[in-house]
C-alpha cells in the first residue's frame, strides 16, 4: 500500500445550517493529514456541491449538517451527483447530528461514511485513506 498524498476532498455545509465548528476542525485535520481541501463554506445547495465536485475532480465529498434536515437534503445531493455521473467515483461522507436510526437509510442512499458529532477526525482520515487505497477512486498507477 502506498501512502496517498494527493487525495482531494471537497467539504461543504448544506442548507442554512450555521454550525460550522466541526467541519472547520475536520478541514484542518484533513489538511494536516496531507490532503488537499476545498471548503465551500455554508449555505451551499446540492447542485452547487455536485458541480464543484465535478469541476474540481475531487476524490471525496464531505457534508456537514447539524440542522436535522439531512434526510431531505442528502437525497438531493446523491441525485445531483448521479446526474453528473460522478457518484461512483466519489467517496461520500456525511457528518453531524445524525440520529442512529438514520445511519442505515443514509448508507442506502449511497453515503459510504456517516460520522455523528463526537467522531474523531482520525477516524475520518483513516476511512478516506483505507477506502481510496482500495482503489475506489485512486489515481491510475
Amino acid at each position, binding site marked *: 500500500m502506498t501512502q496517498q498524498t494527493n487525495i482531494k476532498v471537497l467539504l461543504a455545509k448544506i442548507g442554512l445550517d450555521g454550525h460550522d465548528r466541526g467541519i472547520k476542525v475536520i478541514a484542518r485535520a484533513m489538511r494536516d493529514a496531507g490532503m488537499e481541501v476545498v471548503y465551500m463554506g455554508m449555505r451551499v445547495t446540492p447542485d452547487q456541491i455536485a458541480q464543484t465536485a465535478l469541476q474540481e475532480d475531487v476524490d471525496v465529498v464531505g457534508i456537514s449538517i447539524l440542522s436535522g434536515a439531512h434526510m431531505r437534503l442528502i437525497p438531493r445531493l446523491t441525485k445531483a451527483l448521479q446526474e453528473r455521473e460522478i457518484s461512483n467515483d466519489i467517496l461520500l461522507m456525511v457528518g453531524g447530528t445524525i440520529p*442512529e436510526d438514520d445511519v442505515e437509510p443514509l448508507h442506502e442512499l449511497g453515503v459510504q461514511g456517516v460520522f455523528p458529532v463526537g467522531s474523531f477526525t482520525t477516524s475520518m482520515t483513516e476511512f478516506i485513506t483505507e477506502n481510496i487505497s482500495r482503489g475506489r477512486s485512486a489515481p491510475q498507477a
Partner: protein
Amino acid sequence: MAKETNSKPNRSLSGLEVKPVYTPEDLANTDFVRDLGQPGEFPFTRGPYPNMYLGRLWTRRQIAGFGTAQATNERYRFLLDHGQNGISTDFDHPTLTGYDSDHDLAEGEVGRLGVAIDSVQDMDDLFLDIPLDKVSVSLTINHPAIVLMGMFLSVSEKRGVDWKALRGTVQNDSLKEFHGQKTFALGPGPSLKLTTDIVEFCTKQVPNWYTISISGYHIRESGSDAIQELAFTIAQGMAYVESALERGLPVDSFAPRLSFFFGCHNDVFEEVAKFRAARRMWARIMKERYNAQKPESMRLRFHTQTLGSTLMRQDPQNNIARGTLQALAAVLGGTQSLHVSGFDEAFDIPSEEAMRMSLATQLILSHESGVTNTVDPMAGSYFMESMTNDIEEAAWEYISKIEALGEGQYQIKSGLLHAIDTGYIELEIARSAYEYQLKIESGEQVVVGLNQYQSESNQKLELFQFDPEEEEWQKGRLAEIRGGRSPADVKSALASLKQDAQDDKNLMPAVLAAVGAMATEGEILDTMRDIYGEYVDPGVF
C-alpha cells in the same frame, strides 16, 4: 518561588496556569475595596445586586421553539406550567437567516431547529394566551432582529399592551454572527446599523426592553476558549456602545438596557472567574472609557446557557452531570437567568423529558444545594481571585489587539469591524476548536465515556419527534397570508422601507409599517439585501 518539581503545571481548560496551592501572596496586588468592592457596587465583581439570590433567584429560562407557532406555543405553556418563569424563543434557520418558509434554501429546515415565523400572524399565534406584560420574553434573533422585534411590537399594540410595559430581550448581537452562530444575512456594517436602530428606537419607545444580548455563548460553541469568549464579547459590547454614541445617544440613556449572554463549560473555577472578570471589566470600561455616570450603565447582567458542544452521544445520561456542573458554575458566577441544555441534544433538539430534567437541575440548585444562601460565595478565595485577575489580563490582550487594528474616535468599533473583515477572530476561534479536538483525540483531555471510561451500555433515548407535516402546513399558511393581503399596501410599505434605507434613516418605523401591511420576513430582508448586499460565508478555516 523556586520550581520544586519538573512536572508540568496544571492548566485550566483555556490554558491558564493553575498552581498546586494559592496563598495570600498571590493577591499581593489585589486591593479588595478597589478590585472587588461590595456586591451591587462598583466595580460589581461580586455581583450586580447587593443581595443577589437572597433578593430574587435567577430566571429559569429554557429556550424553546420548533415547528409552527402553534406547536411552540404549546411547549411554552408546558414550560410555564412546570416551573419556568421566562420565555426564550428559538427560531428556525430560515427565520434566523431572513428567508421565508417557501424559499428554496429553506427546504427541510422549516420549523426544524426552531419555530418558523413568516409574518406578524405567526408571531401572534406564538404568544397566544401568554400575557406579554407579565411574562418576560427573549427573542433570539440577530440580523432580522428589527423585523421580529417589529412583529412583536405590532402584536403587543394589537392586544392593547403598552410598549412601556414590555419586559424582555432581543438578542440583536449582529457582529458575533460572523464568528459565532453564523446566521448572518447582511455584512458587518449594515447589520451593525440595524442593531443600533433597535437600540435607538427602544431606548425612546420601549424603555424596559433589553436592546442587545451581547453574546459570547455562540463564540464558545464555535470552539473558542473562555478567554476568547470573554474578550470578543466585551469587544462586541464596546463596539455597540461606540455605535450608539456615534448616533448621538447619551451613554446613560441606552447602556442600562444592554445585557450579556455567556456559555458555561465544565471547568467550574475558570467559568466562575470568567463571569466575575466580565463584570469588573465592563464596569471599568463603562465608567472610565465611556464616562457613564449611572451605576446601572456599569453593572453587567447576563444570561447563561450550558454548552451543547460539551454534550456527548456516548452515555447521554452523563450529560446531566455535565449540565449540573456548568449550571453550578453559572450560579456561583452570579447569573441572572439560566438555560440548562437538554442531555439528549447530541442527537436532536431536546425532548420534553430532557427539558423537564433541565428545569429540575435548576430547581435542585436553587432549593437543595445551599449555594444561594450567601452572595458571591467564592469571593476572597486566593485561587478564585487569582483566576479572576488572570483571565481578565488574558482577555485584555485580545481587546488591545483589536483596538490596535482600529482608528479614530470609535476605535474598538473600527478595530472589530476590521478584525471581522480579515477573518482574524474566526481564525483564532477555529484554531482553539482544533487544538481542543486534538487534545481529546490524543487523550490529553479526558472526556468520560468518549475517550476514556467507555461503557458498554447503549440505552436508547426517547428523542424529540419532528413532524414533517409542519413544513407543508407552514408553507400553506404563508400562501394564505400572501393571498389575503393588499399587494399594493405591501409594495408601498416595502418601497418606503427602501427609501428610508437609502436615506440612512432609522428603519424601525418603516419595518413596523411593513409588518402591519403583512409583508413577510423574507420580503423585508430581501429589500434590505437589495440595498445593503448579502453576506456570503468566506469559508475560512
